[in-house]
């Protein structure tokens, strides 16, 4: 709850404050707000909470994915510096939207949250007002609006098929499959799974590198939060095949596309497509929140390192040649880039290796052998282009040109930087600021590679649960359970209708009609349950009550059934 209040209040306040304070101060306020939100997350870590009638939930999914998303935004705020204060404001809006997205099991709310963080991104993509910036913004906006429409239609069909707006509601029939596939397609656009990835290379290349860093990390985390909730369905019928096709295409096309690139930013765009496919492997298992969370954290740190180094070289294109001999010219940049690349390639002892291992274990638990083999083979392919970049970084080359030196931020060069020209007033942070995140992230990638338990414990109550049989997480906190629909005092006509509500993920609840037990429901991973009544209710007063097995009392609704 407190994270929601911090982000909502800070972004609203900064909207007005920005007119009266210098851009530098706005940036600090935005950075401070995101940092405060991260701190509040960590203080309330592991607590569960449901508010607003179940539309806002704080649970492991919300916490882990919000953490990754906010870290990505924080990084972009720390290294991006614009003359226009709206730059930091838009990043803060996006951070708020991603938190909304990660913390709701309700599909309409997910759609609103998706728009909240997409709109600022469309504007940030055009931040460099040149042909390519406009092209990036236009492509992103048109395709984003289309995918939002697909998402909305999927939600409508989902409501038709299940009578529930909650993600993860059980259902059957072609309508339900169509709904899930539409929602899957729309969310796959956000996390850029093939064939919904066409915007990714162009947008990452046309946007300022600082913004690309945020898009490649934070946006993916928010998208996967929604995917984890939506795809938490017991039987994997047709949509399981659809997801498998997406993942197979993604790991093949992402890696092969990256092989053919001649420019570092575009290469990282294709690499981020490929990584979305690896994360997708975890979606087959209902208990993969911890593995996906750790993977996304490792991926954030490694891909962030690579993008931050590119941003330090130039906000525009970085042809391969400009990386030549980076290690000797700028030792810090060279080391950070190398560590990031090794981690992305999934080589031990770096964090990326453990991330891949955990996700692959989840896929193995779900017995997706074909996809697993494909992912392993393509990982080996990926090593080629990551190591090619590394090879350039450590190559002895001709001396760097003077203008390259001038393009690097001060702490890394020792020369003052000209304010960003022709980049929408976007330049890199100077002072020690640009160097700190790089050092911290490099240290973290190595540390999490040597001691992965440190990071994995964050996301999972029991370290290495992936290696053992899945256990149901038990919390000692009193978790409430409710009936959200039908509402108390509602008048319904006789005929079939469904009950919905919230509860503690994974528990089984008993549903009582007046004084007889009519059914048991299992609460899904997202904390929501729904039940189609087994037989149509008789005419008259009904009191529907939900109880924990063995407990006598629970929330109830009084419903009048009329002819």
């Amino acid at each position, binding site marked *: 709850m407190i994270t929601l209040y911090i982000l909502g209040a800070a972004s609203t306040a900064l909207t007005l404050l920005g007119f009266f304070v210098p851009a530098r101060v706005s940036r600090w306020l935005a950075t401070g707000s995101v940092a405060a939100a991260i701190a509040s997350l960590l203080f309330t870590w592991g607590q569960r909470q449901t508010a607003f009638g179940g539309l806002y939930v704080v649970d492991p999914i919300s916490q882990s994915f919000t953490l990754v998303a906010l870290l990505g935004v924080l990084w972009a705020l720390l290294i991006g510096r614009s003359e226009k204060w709206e730059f930091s404001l838009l990043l803060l809006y996006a951070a708020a939207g991603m938190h909304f997205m990660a913390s709701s099991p309700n599909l309409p709310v997910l759609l609103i949250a998706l728009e909240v963080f997409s709109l600022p991104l469309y504007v940030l993509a055009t931040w460099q007002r040149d042909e390519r910036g406009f092209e990036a913004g236009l492509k992103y906006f048109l395709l984003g609006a289309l995918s939002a429409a697909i998402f909305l239609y999927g939600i409508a069909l989902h409501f038709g098929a299940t009578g529930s707006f909650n993600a993860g509601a059980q259902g059957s029939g072609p309508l339900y499959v169509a709904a899930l596939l539409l929602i899957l397609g729309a969310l796959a656009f956000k996390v850029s799974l093939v064939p919904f990835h066409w915007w990714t290379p162009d947008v990452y290349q046309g946007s300022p590198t600082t913004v690309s860093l945020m898009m490649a990390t934070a946006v993916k985390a928010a998208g996967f939060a929604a995917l984890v909730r939506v795809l938490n369905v017991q039987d994997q019928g047709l949509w399981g095949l659809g997801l498998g096709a997406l993942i197979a295409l993604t790991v093949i096309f992402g890696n092969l596309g990256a092989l053919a690139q001649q420019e570092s930013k575009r290469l990282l765009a294709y690499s981020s497509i490929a990584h979305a496919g690896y994360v997708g492997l975890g979606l087959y298992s209902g208990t993969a929140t911890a593995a996906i969370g750790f993977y996304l954290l490792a991926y954030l740190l490694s891909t962030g390192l690579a993008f931050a180094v590119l941003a330090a070289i130039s906000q525009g294109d970085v042809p391969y040649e400009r990386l030549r001999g980076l290690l000797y010219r700028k030792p810090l940049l060279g080391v950070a880039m190398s560590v990031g690349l090794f981690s992305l390639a999934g080589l031990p002892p770096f964090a990326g290796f453990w991330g891949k291992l955990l996700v692959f274990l989840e896929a193995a638990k779900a017995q997706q052998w074909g996809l697993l083999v494909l992912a392993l083979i393509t990982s080996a392919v990926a090593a080629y282009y990551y190591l090619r970049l590394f090879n350039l970084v450590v190559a002895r080359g001709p001396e760097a040109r003077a203008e390259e030196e001038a393009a690097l931020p001060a702490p890394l060069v020792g020369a003052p930087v000209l304010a960003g020209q022709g980049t929408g007033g976007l330049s890199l942070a100077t002072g020690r600021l640009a160097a700190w995140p790089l050092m911290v992230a490099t240290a973290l990638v190595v540390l999490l590679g040597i001691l992965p338990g440190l990071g994995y414990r964050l996301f999972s109550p029991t370290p290495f649960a992936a290696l053992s049989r899945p256990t149901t997480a038990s919390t000692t906190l009193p978790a409430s359970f409710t009936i959200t629909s*039908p509402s108390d005092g509602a008048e319904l006509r006789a005929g079939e209708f469904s009950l919905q509500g919230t509860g503690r993920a994974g528990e089984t609840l008993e549903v009582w009609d007046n004084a007889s037990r009519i059914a048991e429901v299992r609460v899904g991973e997202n904390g929501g349950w729904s039940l189609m009544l087994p037989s149509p209710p008789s005419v008259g007063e009904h009191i529907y009550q939900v109880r924990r097995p063995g407990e006598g009392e629970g929330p109830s609704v009084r419903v009048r059934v009329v002819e």
Partner: protein
Amino acid sequence: MSFAELLAAALLILSALVVVRTSNAVHAALALIANFLVIAAVYVGLEARFVAMTQVIVYAGAIVVLFLFVIMLLSAAQANVGKDLLPGLQIPAILGSVALAGVLVYALGRFSAPANPGVLNGGLPQALGPLLYTPEKWLYALLLVGFLLLVATIAAVVLVEPERIVPEASKPASEEKELVGR
């Protein structure tokens, strides 16, 4: 299917086709308004009167009017200008649309709606207000929509505002020219 329903369906499809197919953007926007008016009438028939009024006021009365402003300000009524970079895409596009429609019609055809969705009371705001503003119901979603509108406003302003002239010692001439050009 009564006669009125058939007529509404025919009008909806016809106006939508005009929106997509006509090469005059003003005609397309006007056809879109016609489409919205018909869909509002359909909403009334489906006991969603408040949504129908909102559809007319907001969609037809505000959004498409903005469309028309933009089209007329840019004198962009004629669509077929420039080079078609993807000739021969029409047939695949039509086939794709028909295939998608076929799949959705199949899915919807196998679906039987609940016999009675409850008492809708004509979908008047008296019934919708408590749903929208009760904290246990949809208030959170409503607040988020409010936040989204704030974000949209700021995003639109940032997107269109001209480059600010930042007092700087040395500005390259190329950028000066750009400032004039925009």
